[in-house]
């Protein structure tokens, strides 16, 4: 189904859900104020629903917002976003019955940074989506760029483009990509500890601790994040040193077995910090140790909330399977 078709379908479904009182609000996307941005939209009536869109820039994970509502909520979501909803339901953060999930089969979201890189600093004035291509106009020229070459890194290795759960499916299911081998982090995983440390510290040196990564993350919902605690204060507030690292390392471990790799954190970062590699590595460890992939099933217990006699315990008895 074309983009226009998806947009029309989402608008129709949202308008219907709002009109018949099934939901009080539909959380979707509308065109943003910039050519490369779609922006969250909270539609409450038919006129609002008419503003909803679907395009290559619907990168935000809107499930971030659903915990704010205690009533019936409609939400427009990609495959990865439904995985985070699954985790939120399993963690008793939202009631499945309160949600009307409008799932959109996704063929990957476009990385604004890649397009801007191709335009070499010239400002992008407009982007139109054609069949598998993006027609990008900057201050100097118009270019036709294959869509697949502009996708976010996370989208390139995504194995769940179709919604895991949904009430309404907007559009035909898309072909899933091959199963995840974590080969994109194989090089990082195989590097000696010193090299991995240098890579992570090098990235985190750019962090300005604005916490956009945390605040964009659907699963970072702690009422009091450990970095905000003052009695006791677990982490110092300085930048560029162990405090920054502590934040990212603790956050990545807190998301172990929960992170669905939607990429919301990395897209939110204003400094281009590669947060993804760290989370991907932890995900590959969870997959290797527990055979668990977050957000794929409402019934499968989360690895850190169950115990099996044959759970790997090498980390207690010496050796580190994670380093393999």
């Amino acid at each position: 189904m074309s983009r226009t078709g998806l947009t029309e379908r989402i608008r129709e479904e949202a308008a219907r859900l709002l009109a018949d009182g099934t939901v009080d609000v539909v959380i979707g996307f509308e065109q943003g104020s910039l050519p490369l941005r779609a922006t969250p939209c909270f539609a409450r009536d038919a006129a609002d629903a008419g503003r909803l869109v679907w395009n290559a820039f619907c990168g935000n994970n809107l499930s971030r917002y659903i915990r704010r509502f205690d009533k019936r909520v409609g939400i427009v979501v990609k495959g990865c976003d439904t995985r985070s909803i699954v985790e939120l339901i399993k963690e008793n953060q939202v009631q499945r019955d309160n949600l009307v999930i409008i799932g959109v089969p996704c063929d990957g979201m476009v990385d604004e940074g890649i397009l801007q890189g191709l335009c070499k600093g010239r400002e992008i004035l407009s982007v139109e989506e054609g069949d598998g291509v993006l027609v990008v106009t900057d201050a100097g020229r118009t270019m036709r760029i294959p869509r697949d070459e502009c996708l976010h890194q996370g989208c390139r290795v995504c194995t769940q483009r179709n919604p895991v759960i949904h009430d309404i499916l907007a559009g035909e299911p898309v072909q899933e990509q091959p199963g995840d081998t974590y080969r994109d982090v194989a090089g990082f995983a195989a590097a000696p500890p010193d090299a991995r440390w240098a890579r992570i510290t090098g990235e985190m040196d750019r962090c300005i601790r604005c916490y956009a990564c945390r605040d964009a993350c659907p699963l970072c919902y702690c009422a009091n994040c450990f970095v905000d605690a003052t009695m006791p204060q677990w982490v110092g507030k300085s930048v560029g040193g162990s405090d920054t690292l502590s934040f990212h390392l603790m956050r990545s471990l807190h998301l172990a077995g929960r992170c669905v790799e939607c990429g919301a954190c990395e897209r939110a970062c204003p400094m281009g910090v590669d947060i993804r590699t760290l989370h991907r590595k932890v995900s590959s460890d969870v997959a290797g140790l527990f055979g668990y992939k977050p957000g794929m099933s409402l019934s499968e217990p989360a690895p850190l909330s169950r115990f099996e006699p044959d759970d790997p315990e090498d980390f207690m008895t010496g050796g580190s399977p994670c380093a393999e």
Partner: protein
Amino acid sequence: MRGVNEMSAVRLGKGDVAGFLEGLLADWTVVAPVMHDGIVSFRAITSGTEADLDYSNSAQSPKGVVLPQVETLLSCPCSSPEGEDVVEHTPEPGRVVLFGVRPCDARGIGFLDRVFGEGANGDNYYASRRESLLVVSLGCSHPLATCFCTTTGGGPFSTEGSDLIMAEHGDEYIVFAVTENGATFLSRHGLSKAAESAVQAVLSAAETSVAEMQPRVGLSILKGSLDGSFDAAAWNTLTEKCVGCGVCTYVCPTCHCFDIVDEVSGGSRVRNRIWDSCQFPCFTRQASGFDPRPTYRERYRQRFMHKFSFCTDRYGTPGCVGCGRCVTECPVNLDIRRIMAFFSEKRGEE
């Protein structure tokens, strides 16, 4: 270009910039735009070739030159008895030139001067850094669609906060002195005088560039509207998409709120001044646990009203220079210009 000395304008060939900066490095710390890992940042350079003036704007503003994100105010060894051996860390930056900043960011420093530098409450840490700073700005021949400097009282060739301002002219920059410090600097560096025709050409181009950026809203209308809108229901919907991160405040050239934090570092107790953000939950949470700004709604409103109402009351100028960074970097595209337009048009009636 207000206040520039046309007669003493000099030329600096684009190809000569690296050599010029290299020559400064003997006596100056040169902070310039540097491209690294795909983003542009202001950094102290070690070689003239590192500076990259072919940029639109940096990811973060250069305000850290006068207000570092983390600044140690005091320290004492952990081994010392309480209250003894306390050292005050007054900055001694030497001579620093901030080279190639955009006029909006130079105005940002001009704004911070009003907050930290003036009157009986002048901040000596800020003053130490500011007094040793020379600001060389680079006028904007090609403002971005996200720029709105003229709306907040500036412009693509605004000279406020600058000691010198450069304007592109073909393969050279025409450099104008704005302040006496700037004129003295120019007189010591033996750059050749700019051709009269070039000076007139860039002045005329600057005027055109300013005229092409019509202000989006009237600041006094906006302020009048805001002053009656503190409890407007519209804040609920306007701010609903905010996720409560601190991006807007940390990329902003004028946001200046900080926290004073005592930490232990390398065997010393240190008292640091660290940027804080009104968007964070800890910013207004009181000892009792009560928070007068409990959600993104009150926090966003605070930032917006601080910029366009409270700062105007206090400093006679808005706390926004229209650089557009918060527009570009907000993870959810909560565009401050739309909020400005809303209150200007609605005049607070909602």
